């Protein structure tokens, strides 16, 4: 029953997202294309964090670092006149994966508070590296001349085309994540969250699976960074600040850790709250706090938990 409710919610969300550019044009409010484009990019970042935080139980408090690596790779290439998307995008994704590999290889040897602190420390190191890159704007950031070039068939300067590209990436990642968590790999990652000691005892070398999940999540977040820098045409260390990592984490918790639709819902609610409330007060986060407390205390599986079946529910069998 709830399984089908979740399917209906997903269909409605997709239909809404597909319709946004059309509605925006009909209402003469192009601003909505921008707003929902931004929501979807952060939803991709939250989706990637959910893989390791929600399913894997790895509380990475530096996830914005991989976003930043994606942003800076595209930005730096662009500053040197390399605007070809076929060059920029694979390099940016590879760079995020590589940084995640390095950070993960060190930090996954620890757990608990130490893991949180080490991932945070690495992210702050990258933040200050960004600040120190005076050639690329340093603290002030740097504006990009153009979005990534993919030839005539895909013109990212057209905001509607760009919007649908972001939507396509979000849907592809959503589908991929939904497969991965129920595949062998996903079950291992979830097993590690529930009881890592037992996982070792039944024969799993857990470290390599955790590291692989960490790298996959980093690379996916790098894609979010690539989209974000194209979206804003702006590079700034602010994208890597620890408060950004915190915001991605809040989106995941708000939407529901370890749920399929949670990250996207969390990103939407977070950014819409910000959009609406920041019109009244710059202290809009004051209102977010109580919402988050209520969620954490009374709805551990977040907003998506309202209609998405618990993962422990009996799965359909062969």
């Amino acid at each position: 029953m709830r399984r089908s409710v979740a399917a209906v919610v997903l269909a409605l969300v997709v239909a809404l997202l597909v319709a946004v550019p059309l509605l925006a044009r009909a209402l003469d409010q192009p601003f909505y294309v921008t707003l929902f484009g931004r929501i979807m990019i952060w939803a991709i970042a939250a989706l990637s964090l959910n893989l390791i935080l929600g399913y894997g139980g790895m509380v990475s408090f530096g996830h914005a670092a991989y976003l930043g690596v994606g942003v800076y790779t595209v930005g730096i290439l662009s500053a040197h006149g390399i605007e070809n998307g076929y060059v920029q995008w694979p390099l940016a994704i590879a760079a995020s994966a590589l940084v995640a590999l390095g950070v993960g290889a060190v930090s996954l040897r620890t757990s608990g508070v130490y893991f949180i602190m080490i991932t945070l420390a690495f992210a702050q190191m990258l933040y200050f590296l960004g600040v120190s890159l005076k050639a690329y704007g340093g603290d002030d950031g740097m504006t990009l001349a153009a979005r990534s070039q993919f030839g005539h068939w895909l013109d990212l300067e057209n905001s509607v085309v760009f919007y649908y590209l972001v939507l396509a990436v979000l849907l592809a990642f959503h589908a991929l994540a939904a497969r991965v968590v129920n595949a062998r790999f996903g079950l291992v990652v979830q097993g590690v969250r529930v009881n890592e000691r037992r996982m070792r005892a039944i024969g799993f070398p857990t470290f390599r699976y955790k590291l692989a999940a960490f790298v996959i999540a980093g690379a996916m977040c790098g894609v979010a960074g690539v989209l974000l820098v194209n979206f804003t045409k702006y590079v700034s260390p602010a994208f890597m600040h620890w408060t950004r990592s915190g915001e991605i984490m809040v989106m995941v918790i708000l939407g529901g850790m370890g749920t399929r639709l949670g990250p996207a819902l969390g990103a939407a609610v977070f950014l819409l709250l910000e959009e609406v409330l920041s019109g009244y007060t710059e202290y809009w986060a004051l209102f977010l706090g109580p919402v988050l407390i209520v969620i954490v205390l009374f709805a551990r599986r977040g907003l998506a938990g309202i209609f998405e079946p618990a993962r422990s529910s009996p799965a359909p069998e062969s």
Partner: protein
Amino acid sequence: MTLLVAEHLRKQFGGVIATDDVGLTVDDGEIHAVIGPNGAGKTTLIAQLAGELEPDAGRISFGGTDVTRRPVHERSQLGLARSFQITSIFRDFTVIDNAALAVQAHRGSSFHFWRNARRDPQLREPAREALAAVGLGGRADAVAGELAHGEQRQLEIAMALATRPKLLLLDEPMAGMGREDGERMVGLLRGLKAGHGVLLVEHDMDAVFALADRITVLVYGRVIASGSPHAIRNDPRVIEAYLGDTEAAPA
């Protein structure tokens, strides 16, 4: 055939010598019980045999391979399985998912990202067999954390069995069980002898003397006696140490 050989094992925690020059062997098809009063170092011994703790000195070999420095998961891959004194299952998962995960660890790579592992008969069928072997066949789709205590203890054994081990290290499989569940467990353990070696740590003396082919008695980390159940039962050192220790223990 001798499966497991431990020689001169020693493990010290600060001033406490938890394992003091312990040696023992387990053969295929036998149940070798390790008994002793609380604090004798039984669980510490199991942890060293399973690979969770590294001994300070001594040697452990399994199936002819020196595994003294091998990590837990490698020993599992060689066919050494353990169950835990304090139930250690995947509480959020269904019962069959628990067993299937144990099967999965021993059936090829788990770097598969697309196919639904819950619909893979290569994993589900051996998992069902392991559940049936311990009498949990009818509870496959229940959530593991919601099982009764006795059933969770059965699942502990099923997960160990699902790894297709040669040798089982069972750490108090009857802990906290009532009489009825305990009797069922004794029957289950007796059935495991065919095809497995079993190292059994257990407090329930009736069960130990009903099941064991050999018994080793551990007191303060040292082996004070080892032999057949009959010899152990009549060994004055065992009677003295075991009873003496119980009486001397502060209330």
